[in-house]
């Protein structure tokens, strides 16, 4: 799978938010087992998936990520007893919001990868990379931000209408 992706003209950037106890250790295990996977993923370590604020996901999309992975301990295995349950509930709601604002949910993946599942880490990362590559770059949020930064004004019909209503 590694040799195959070299010829692609688009290499997606994947941000992975992982917990230190399970998925980070699982990714370490993939390393010590010398498994191979595409180099597109950048890992950000957290103590627990419970620490991961949905805002981080939005920000990652804005700042260049084409896909986001959130991964932690399996339900019931949380080092902090219940952090992954809070995360699960939070992201179930957050997915709906993302869907509503028009983000293709295929760019976002949640998974449970334990410290013993190096193989599963490879599978999840490879799967998400391939999928996001076929979807092409994530432009919407980036363009929006560039517009905000460089145009000096945000000029949408909705905003105009709002301004007029005030004045």
């Amino acid at each position, binding site marked *: 799978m*590694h040799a195959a992706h*070299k010829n692609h003209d688009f290499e997606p*950037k994947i*941000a992975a938010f992982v917990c230190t106890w399970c998925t*980070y*250790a699982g*990714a*370490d295990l*993939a*390393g*010590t087992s*010398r*498994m*191979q*996977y595409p*180099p597109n993923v*950048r*890992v*950000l*370590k*957290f*103590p*627990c998936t*419970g*620490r*991961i*604020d949905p805002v*981080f996901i939005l*920000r*990652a999309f804005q*700042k*260049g*990520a084409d896909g986001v992975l959130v991964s932690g301990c399996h339900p019931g295995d*949380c*080092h*902090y*007893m*219940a*952090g992954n349950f*809070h*995360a699960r509930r*939070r992201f179930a709601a957050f997915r709906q919001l993302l869907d509503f604002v028009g983000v293709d949910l295929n760019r976002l993946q949640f998974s449970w990868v334990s410290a013993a599942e190096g193989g599963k880490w*490879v599978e999840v990362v490879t799967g998400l990379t391939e999928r996001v590559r076929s979807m092409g770059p994530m432009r919407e949020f980036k363009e929006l931000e560039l517009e905000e930064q460089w145009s000096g004004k945000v000029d949408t019909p909705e905003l105009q209408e709002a301004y007029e209503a005030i004045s």
Partner: protein
Amino acid sequence: MSRIGVFVCHCGENISRTVDVERVAQAAARLPGVAYATDYKYMCSDPGQSLLKKAIAEHNLDGVVVAACSPRMHEKTFRKAAEATGLNPFVCEMANIREHCSWVHEDREEATAKAIDIVKLMAARVRRNRRLAAITVPVTKRALVIGGGIAGIQAALDIADAGHEVVLVEREPSIGGHMAQLSETFPTLDCSQCIMTPKMVDVANHPKITLHTYSEIEEVGGYIGNFQVTVRKKARSVDMAKCTGCGVCMAKCPQKKIPNAFDKDMGTRPAIYVPFPQAVPNTPVIDRENCTYFKSGKCGVCAKVCGPCAVDYTQQDELVTEQIGAIVVATGFDLYSIEPKPADSPIQGYGEFGYGTIPDVIDGMTFERLASASGPTGGKILRPSDGKEPKEVVFIQCVGSRAREKGISYCSKICCMYTAKHTMLYKHKVHDGQAYVFFMDARTPGKNYDEFWRRAIEEEEAVYIRGMVSRLYQKGDKVVVMGSDISVGIQVEIEADLVVLATAVQARKGADTLAQKLGISYDKYNFYSEAHAKLKPVECATAGIYLAGACQGPKDIPDTVSQASAAAAKVMTLFAKDQLEREPIVARVNERFCAACFACKKVCPYGAVEEKEIRDRQGNLIRVVASVNPGVCGGCGTCQATCPSKSVELDGYTDEQVMAMIEAL
């Protein structure tokens, strides 16, 4: 941090084979905030660490990124090295370019680009790292042991012998637990009382052990090193300070027909009693439910005959609060009963065994009492129905255990061995008797265990029949056992005089209630959960609480004693320090912004969030805010992700640090 040093490791060839480490160092030198970057063959080696220390001093660095292996491998090593130069250890971070990069990619170009990115992320993070001070909490060097069976006794003695104070709480009037009920113990057949009672006396006489018998845990507060535990000392109706243990009260008590639970209801006891003659403490208790004085107000014989006037009918339950540093939970087990259970229980009894209505079908513990020299029959094997000596005894293993349909899928571990022991004890006492055992498998791992089991078959002539029993019923004065012998594929019918069931080991009734008070987790069978099945077998996930014995899962005496000593060793390790040091990854509340919604309090799995009142100088309440107790906080950060006003922050994983990393993506 604005003067960061980046140190790229070759890891021999482990990293440099796929990653161009020199290019990584060159790229790192150009990153914002990076003042120095270099690469070296083995950063973790002595010369590597010296290089790091020298560079920190020479270049006046205030932050460090070591691009090498996983932080799980060498974070501590490099933080220590950084600390040796006077740097705060928490401004040193690792960029994992081995496990997450060089080992999982082959293409040198791609791997190098990724390594540079990983370093970039970590450098951005370290720029926002704060200097954190290790958190210390004082340790109260006083242990609480809950349960006075062999596990609790062993743990208490070990800790007390190390010179620390121990509070031992036992629910029953005497310590001793199940082991005090046993006749002889496998695999050496030494008398249980003979090895147990000296230990019980040691506990009572130990100057460092405070014993609360006939007491229960009422409330547990606090955290590792600093628990406050309230113990309910139930009213004994006898003043322990005055009682001499002469036993006149028990001899004179007119109410003597109460079934003795210690003898599995086979013998009787008076209303004022000690559970068994070797009880520790040897102070009687009045069973208020059965005492004539408490029922009708008449009698009072015990008070009249008591020389030292120790009997006190007006005694009330007493609440004692103890300051505790560590807790050992050793509450033991209950035995499964074949009687039908309440409707809400997943276990529904054994209809095919007559739901416990056949008098000569007994459980293993009842057999222990029959075989015990101090038991109701004085050690003679006599069956309960008519007191005759049984000539044919059938033992049935795995009653309840390994029976998913009965709600218990686990193996009770001790039954194979104690059934083999029972056949031997029986043969030793009834020479012309015959023992049969119905079994699924014989599980005898343990030192000298398999030899013991073989001895039961080869020397003591127990007949082992591989197969299960489908029905037990009364026929005349016999119990008919209908079973199968699957090794030859035939039905077996035995007319037995006595049937002994090796019933499953279960968690104590009320184990879940105690767990909730302690804040420890338990499995679906109510056995307490250890923090890690292999590497933390005696620790609970809750810091400062340890497990010993069958409350964690079925266990025999050698395993229980080992675990109890292990738990004691853990407590001593904790008590070896005056202050507890822990990683300062804890949440902190910004009181100026906290809106007191207490969403953080709701999600905190540790109960670390408290409500703090802010008052002016006159003492008027201004407002209430959330406050995190750093001693209790586990550092998961769920509160921060939950807080709507972002006024709680997890040190080491602040929003600022995370956002900096995301910006660097």
